[in-house]
């Protein structure tokens, strides 16, 4: 690690006493300590905002959204590893929305490098730029960043707390701290006497925090080993509290309807039928929609559906065809997000064979199992809000603006998330619940969206079109020239979050497109941002979710044009460019017993995508059963470098793959009259027990830099399946979902 990174980590720990030398941009802000969000009471000592010790024991804070990815457990393990506490004897809380819980890794992701070719210098620069996360108070769970963000900082938090407790014990006992040991939440004196951390908390609070070197990985007890998830018992007994499970004294239940012509106005409504319906307590005019507050969610929903609303038109073409025509128009403008332009793609090398293909993928809903919801109580000068969310500080800011209050007057409680996938990084559900609660001051109101409301009011994964041109010669790819057109999630999100229009190139639009680790001499990948007002947002793996399909389907087409085995074709181009990616391909080759040949009635496809710092290779096998095609098996290999919890990484890998396969098979949001045509799961299905493949996952650890886990499993799944269907049927899948082209098992 370079000097910049070290200083940042130290600064994080020891605040204003840290070394300040003007080394990193923004150091002034960084060294100004964030207000301690825990506000310890009398008899408590807050050693730092991630560790709280009092008479009740040790509480660790994992201020990242637990949406299924296991962050609560692994984040706690990072602290516990150095603090010397047992994971089953501590409490882990999410904690409040707080600037101190900024995500340093997320902003570093914005750098315009490919990722896999990152040098140590760039790596440190990424960390340095990570300080922006704090300046902007970006407490965000997303971008598969939690472990990259927490890995150094949380171990330092634990180590600093441990050494400070030892100092306090040393002062009390009149010995040197180096004569003391720690284990299971106790400091152990030279004579074997044990002093509980909780007994030392007040004395430790009076000391300057001690900085300390981190333990060597060979000493780790938790990290690198699979831990039982701390949320598992709650989730199998129905006692884990999701947003929709919050129950407060005197609480009312609300249901909402917003304009299904997304972004359109509300001209008026007639609520005469709803007023007299059972359970109804209040009908709320939200300006752009209506809500009903009742004594039961279902009664509220029945009533809100009975309101006759006159909706204004959507600010985008009303039909799917018109929307895609508008996306295609973006190709007519100069590209604005070209992040790779190697060699010369202007002409095809002499003697090479040129191939072209056009691909298209649809808009997609997130469809979290738990529909959007939030619970709020408004008192006139405060708002308290409960919900599962991926961005507490942003929600806090939005709620405060909605209620015309200071952010300090808004308290956010983050529950478990019944799925996130990017949807719960949006702020609309918090804003709507606040508006509803403001209609009944002093009363807690839970606003739950119907499944239909949720599916038809999403920030969708953008529909996208790719136009690919390539050339092969002597069995190798010698040219790839890809053009991509889609709406920019980033530009829309910047405007939604900040109120200022986003602009400029969008790396996220072309991620998974420009940065794939293939050694191809003439290689240009360009993004064209389509100017459309369909609400779009971050969907698990974001740009990679469409670009993985485009890039890896085209690699397959090139391999076949070159007369090569599609796996060997990739491997050859990857070996010299990025060894960890090549290693993943070699692993799935071995795991699946890949021979390049399949028996009659069986098809296999391969794909590899490098995303969020982690290469993932997948082989998918499909079988023809009396004319119906079933996904039979999947093999996955990933390499994120150090895997802090290997079994949890495996779960994220096959889960990410299932999410991608669900979309590839069945997922499609289409529009008519400006409204999404899909209402509920019967129109927007996903893999189920009988349609999901058997799966085997291998976790490699050769990558020099830590990559993400939550998202990289998704992108290669879609092209691997499409390529398998080509192997089975000879028909190339150039658009999704595949159910429109193939007779898939449902």
């Amino acid at each position, binding site marked *: 690690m370079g000097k910049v990174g070290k200083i940042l980590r130290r600064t994080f720990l020891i605040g204003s006493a840290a070394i300040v030398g003007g080394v990193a941009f923004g150091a002034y802000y960084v060294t100004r300590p964030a207000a301690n969000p825990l506000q310890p009471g009398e008899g408590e000592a807050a050693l730092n905002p991630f560790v709280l010790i009092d008479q009740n024991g040790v509480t660790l804070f994992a201020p990242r959204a637990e949406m*299924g990815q296991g962050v609560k457990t692994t984040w706690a393990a990072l602290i516990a590893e150095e603090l010397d506490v047992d994971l089953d004897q501590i409490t882990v809380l999410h904690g409040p929305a707080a600037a101190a819980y900024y995500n340093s890794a997320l902003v570093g992701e914005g750098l315009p490098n490919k990722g896999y070719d990152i040098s140590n210098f760039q790596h440190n620069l990424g960390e340095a730029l990570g300080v922006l996360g704090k300046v902007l108070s970006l407490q965000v769970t997303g971008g598969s960043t939690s472990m990259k963000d927490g890995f150094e900082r949380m171990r330092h938090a634990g180590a600093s707390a441990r050494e400070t407790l030892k100092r306090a014990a040393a002062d009390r006992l009149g010995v040197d701290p180096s004569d003391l040991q720690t284990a299971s939440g106790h400091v152990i004196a030279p004579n074997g006497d044990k002093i509980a951390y909780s007994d030392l908390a007040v004395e430790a609070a009076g000391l300057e925090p001690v900085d300390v070197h981190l333990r060597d990985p060979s000493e780790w007890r938790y990290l690198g080993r699979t831990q039982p998830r701390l949320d598992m018992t709650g*989730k199998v*007994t*129905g006692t884990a509290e999701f947003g929709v499970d919050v129950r407060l004294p005197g609480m009312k239940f609300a249901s909402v309807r917003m304009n299904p012509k997304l972004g359109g106005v509300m001209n008026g409504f007639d609520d005469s039928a709803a007023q007299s319906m059972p359970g109804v307590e209040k009908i709320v005019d939200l300006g752009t929609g209506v809500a009903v507050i009742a004594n039961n969610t279902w*009664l509220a929903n029945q009533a809100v559906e009975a309101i006759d609303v006159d909706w204004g038109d959507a600010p985008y073409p009303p039909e799917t065809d018109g929307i895609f025509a508008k996306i295609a128009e973006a190709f007519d403008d100069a590209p604005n997000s070209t992040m790779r332009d190697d060699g010369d793609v202007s002409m095809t090398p002499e003697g090479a064979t040129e191939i072209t293909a056009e691909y298209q993928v649809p808009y997609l809903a997130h469809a979290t199992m738990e529909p959007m919801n939030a619970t709020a109580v408004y008192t006139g000068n405060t708002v308290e809000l409960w919900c599962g969310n991926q961005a507490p500080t942003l929600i806090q800011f939005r709620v405060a603006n909605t209620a015309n209050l200071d952010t300090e007057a808004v308290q956010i409680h983050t529950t478990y998330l019944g799925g996130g996938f990017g949807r719960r990084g949006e702020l609309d559900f918090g804003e709507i619940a606040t508006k509803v609660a403001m209609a009944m001051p002093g009363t807690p109101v839970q606003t739950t969206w*119907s499944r239909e409301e949720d599916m038809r009011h999403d920030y969708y994964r953008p529909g996208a079109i790719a136009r690919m041109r390539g050339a092969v010669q002597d069995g190798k790819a010698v040219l790839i020239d890809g053009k991509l057109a889609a709406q920019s999630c980033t530009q829309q999100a910047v405007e939604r979050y900040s109120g200022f229009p986003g602009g400029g190139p969008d790396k996220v639009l072309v991620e998974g497109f420009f940065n794939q680790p293939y050694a191809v001499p003439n290689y240009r990948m360009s993004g064209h941002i389509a100017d459309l007002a369909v609400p779009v947002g971050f969907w698990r793996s974001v740009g990679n979710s469409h670009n993985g399909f485009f890039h890896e389907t085209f690699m397959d087409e090139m391999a076949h044009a070159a007369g090569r085995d599609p796996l060997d074709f990739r491997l050859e181009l990857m070996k010299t460019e990025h060894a960890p990616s090549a290693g993943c391909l070699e692993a799935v080759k071995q795991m699946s017993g890949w021979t390049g040949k399949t028996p009659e009635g069986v098809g296999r496809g391969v794909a590899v995508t490098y995303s969020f710092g982690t290469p993932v290779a997948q082989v998918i096998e499909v079988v023809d059963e009396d004319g119906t095609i079933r996904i039979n098996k999947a093999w996955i290999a990933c390499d994120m470098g150090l895997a802090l919890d290997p079994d949890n990484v495996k779960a994220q890998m096959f889960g990410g793959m299932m999410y991608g396969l669900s979309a590839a098979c069945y997922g499609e949001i289409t529009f008519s009259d400006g409204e999404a045509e899909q209402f509920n*799961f019967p129109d927007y299905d996903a893999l189920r027990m009988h349609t999901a493949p058997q799966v085997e996952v291998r976790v490699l650890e050769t990558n020099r830099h830590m990559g993400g886990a939550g998202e990289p499993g998704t992108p290669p799944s879609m092209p691997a399946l499409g390529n398998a269907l080509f192997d089975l049927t000879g028909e190339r899948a150039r658009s999704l979902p595949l159910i429109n082209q193939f007779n898939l098992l449902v």
Partner: protein
Amino acid sequence: MATALKINGKQHQVDLPDDVPLLWVLRDEVGLTGTKFGCGVAACGACTVHIDGEAVRSCQVALSDVWGDVTTIEGIGSPDSLAAIQQAWVDHQVAQCGYCQSGQIMQAAALLAENPSPTNADIDDAMQGNLCRCGTYPRLRAAIHDAAGKLKEV
């Protein structure tokens, strides 16, 4: 007029219109939030409970139509005293977001009560109405097989 319901062995008097689905009686009136709302149209299985031992989608059963004793996820075990099937879920670390798992467990429990040694095909048939957007299916299947073994030992 209040309707009488027996839920997890306990009598309740519920004062709600007859057509309110059992799901919303459980969640908003009785306060048993372990049973989840996912779709409202019997397409996801998150709301699965037992009525007289049979797995049903509680979003489709009106209050006045509840024909027997209701068992919810809270009725089969608790954090301090897990049912064998819940222990199998813990052993296999099945849950990710966890939102669908109450329904998955209730559906699987009904399967195992009827068929103590289900094959993969039996599991496919019984479980295909229960959606999991996290894609936990491989571990769900393993946990069901494991729970089948455990239940036979008891």
